């Protein structure tokens, strides 16, 4: 496997990042005069089995106003606000009967317009059974150096790019037309909701440097904006494989790159919690230090926006027949503040018993305030938050449909 030899500029923490104090946003894009008029606030973008909901928080994050559903009745996998312009929302959705698409709003969901060219595979040659996108699943804005560039991951696992803010999409041939794509991610290797490409990570220092995660395929890296790819799975166990550490075939559930220390990658995998510090290529299973009775299986993983050593997970039961609910019916978040060497349970406010749900891979997020606000949505339609980095949790919405995604965005 070729080694990367790309020199990266160091990312310097902001002054506010070095010294977090009272609850306040640490990011902002407006001029000082504009900021003085309006206080930044958090909006939660919630994708569910039956549409999207937007929860507007007040400046202190103590009250929330829910509005929606948007795209009512549609399967909404992901809703993301463009952090570069602070106004463009993209929504990955499909209706039960209809094909998948991407919808766009520039007025916080008051109106939506469908992409003029949604993600789609190229037509196959005559006689060949071609692939068709079944779900648009994951949305990722590129780095700040590429305004209007977005990526989308789909099921079956494919990668698409838009250069006009999500209006039109083209497949990335280096992945979609790659003859190894179906070797790495066999189409018959279906996860319960279909094999998917998710966790599209763009190196904030170098927008040509990409990572993706594929359920049933593993982690992959490109250093040429997706023209070529190589597996990045050393040290990661693979399920349903006689060889414990194959080159590919792993099942990352969720991957994350730290924005201030982009050489640090994390993943919550089907087979544990892993960390990788580049340029190394071997992942370390840091989840082995989780309590044995809880294990280190789960879907999401969330990073502290300023402290690269702090991370949160939401364990689920991956024993016997894989119930995929909170272990023993006792939901809890686990936090590590030392890069995975040790973990602490954070359950204050959460049900102490009979909490038979879990949190999907895109349904746990963090805001950019200090202290960090954390938000997760459950398969049972509950939305929970902590305004103090997990010390205390409270429910802020219930009776929603099955929640697929929760994104905490800041509105200036």
């Amino acid at each position: 496997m070729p080694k990367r030899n790309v020199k990266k500029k160091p990312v310097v923490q902001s002054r506010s990042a070095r010294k977090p104090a009272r609850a306040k946003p640490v990011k902002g894009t407006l001029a000082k005069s504009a900021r003085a008029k309006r206080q930044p606030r958090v909006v939660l973008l919630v994708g569910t089995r039956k549409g999207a909901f937007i929860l507007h928080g007040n400046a202190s994050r103590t009250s929330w106003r829910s509005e929606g559903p948007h795209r009512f009745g549609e399967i909404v996998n992901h809703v993301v606000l463009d952090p570069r312009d602070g106004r463009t929302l993209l929504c990955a959705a499909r209706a039960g009967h209809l094909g998948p698409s991407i919808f766009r709003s520039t007025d916080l969901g008051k109106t939506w317009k469908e992409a003029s060219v949604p993600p789609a595979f190229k037509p196959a040659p005559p006689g060949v059974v071609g692939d068709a996108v079944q779900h648009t699943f994951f949305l990722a804005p590129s780095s700040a150096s590429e305004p209007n560039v977005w990526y989308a991951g789909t099921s079956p696992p494919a990668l698409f790019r838009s250069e006009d803010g999500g209006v039109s999409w083209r497949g990335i041939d280096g992945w979609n037309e790659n003859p190894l794509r179906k070797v790495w991610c066999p189409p018959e290797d279906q996860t319960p909701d279909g094999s998917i490409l998710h966790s599209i990570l763009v190196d904030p220092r170098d927008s040509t440097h990409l990572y993706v995660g594929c359920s049933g395929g593993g982690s992959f890296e490109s250093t040429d904006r997706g023209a070529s790819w190589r597996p990045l799975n050393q040290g990661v166990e693979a399920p349903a494989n006689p060889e414990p550490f194959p080159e590919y075939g792993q099942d990352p559930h969720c991957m994350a790159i730290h924005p201030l220390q982009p050489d640090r990658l994390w993943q919550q995998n089907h087979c544990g919690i892993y960390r990788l510090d580049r340029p190394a290529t071997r992942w370390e299973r840091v989840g082995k230090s989780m309590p044995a009775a809880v294990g280190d299986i789960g879907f999401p993983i969330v990073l502290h926006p300023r402290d690269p050593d702090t991370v949160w997970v939401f364990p689920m039961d991956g024993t016997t027949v894989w119930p995929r609910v909170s272990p023993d019916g006792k939901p809890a978040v686990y936090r590590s503040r030392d890069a995975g060497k040790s973990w602490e349970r954070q359950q204050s406010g959460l049900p102490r018993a009979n909490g038979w749900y879990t949190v999907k891979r895109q349904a746990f997020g963090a805001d950019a305030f200090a202290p960090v606000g954390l938000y997760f949505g459950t398969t049972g339609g509950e939305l929970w938050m902590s305004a103090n980095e997990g010390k205390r949790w409270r429910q802020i919405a219930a009776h929603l449909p099955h929640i697929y995604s929760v994104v905490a965005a800041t509105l200036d």
Partner: protein
Amino acid sequence: MRVAIPSPLRSYTGGREQVQARGATLAELLGDLEAAFPGIRFRMIDEQGRIRVHIRLFVNAELARDLGRALDERDEVQILCALSGG
């Protein structure tokens, strides 16, 4: 000819349950619908030209599985959405 539009697709037709479209085949008719209501075809037909699994096209109440099915101006086309689960 007259084309009946199911409720999931009426966001494209401005809420209209029936529209007029032209075409010597189903494929041409869908192309005409797409020209009038951009985006509607892809929700019914995938990028490989296959009718999506929960879409049914009927011509004069007869199920049509081939987009090459010839049409006459007097035909009536119904687009229906088959069951897709909860």
